[in-house]
């Protein structure tokens, strides 16, 4: 016979919803940061990965073609720091740009400022894509 008082005395179990750290949950975001869309491609999300890669890479290249500015690491103006963080999101594209000294950014036209924004937003969109690749890797999203 069940003892209702004993059942009541049991402490409620606390459910911990911790996600296991798998190899894919580390590799997919890292690869996705380095090569936009690759975090999805490595998880066999071919169409999504290809579309993300196309969108982010094209946006970054358009920014360069519009004479946008690539920010270097800096500790000065807050907008310059944020610009660097945004640029850094593009991963391999940012490294490639810095290595080749692309995007010197002497802004001569109004639309060149759009180029700078394209470069920053391409990096920020890649951060979003990296987070999505992580969510797929841990099974939070299909």
């Amino acid at each position, binding site marked *: 016979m069940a003892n209702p008082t004993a059942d009541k005395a049991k402490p409620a179990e606390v459910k911990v919803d911790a996600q296991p750290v798998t190899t894919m949950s580390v590799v997919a975001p890292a690869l996705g940061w380095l090569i936009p869309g690759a975090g999805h491609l490595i998880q066999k999300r071919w169409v999504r990965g290809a579309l*993300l890669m196309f969108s982010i890479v094209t946006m970054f290249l358009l920014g360069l073609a519009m004479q946008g500015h690539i920010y270097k690491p800096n500790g000065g103006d807050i907008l310059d720091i944020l610009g660097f963080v945004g640029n850094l999101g593009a991963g391999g594209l940012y490294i490639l740009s810095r290595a080749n000294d692309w995007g010197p950014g002497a802004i001569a036209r109004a639309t060149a400022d759009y180029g700078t924004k394209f470069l920053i937003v391409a990096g920020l969109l890649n951060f979003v894509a990296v987070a999505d690749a992580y969510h797929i890797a841990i099974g939070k999203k299909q």
Partner: protein
Amino acid sequence: MTITLTHFSAAVVFAFFASIVFGITQRTTPREMVRYGLYCFAMFVGGVLVAGWAMWLIRR
């Protein structure tokens, strides 16, 4: 290579690529992704048009 876009075409290109990424990353099923991507694109371009007309009215 240098590309010079107009203000409007730059905004439309921006909206196009940003909407693709938002659609893919913010929804789960392919159908919802397409719908949300189209919604984002419409909001981006609609916002540009509304802001453009608002500035035109302020200027007059």
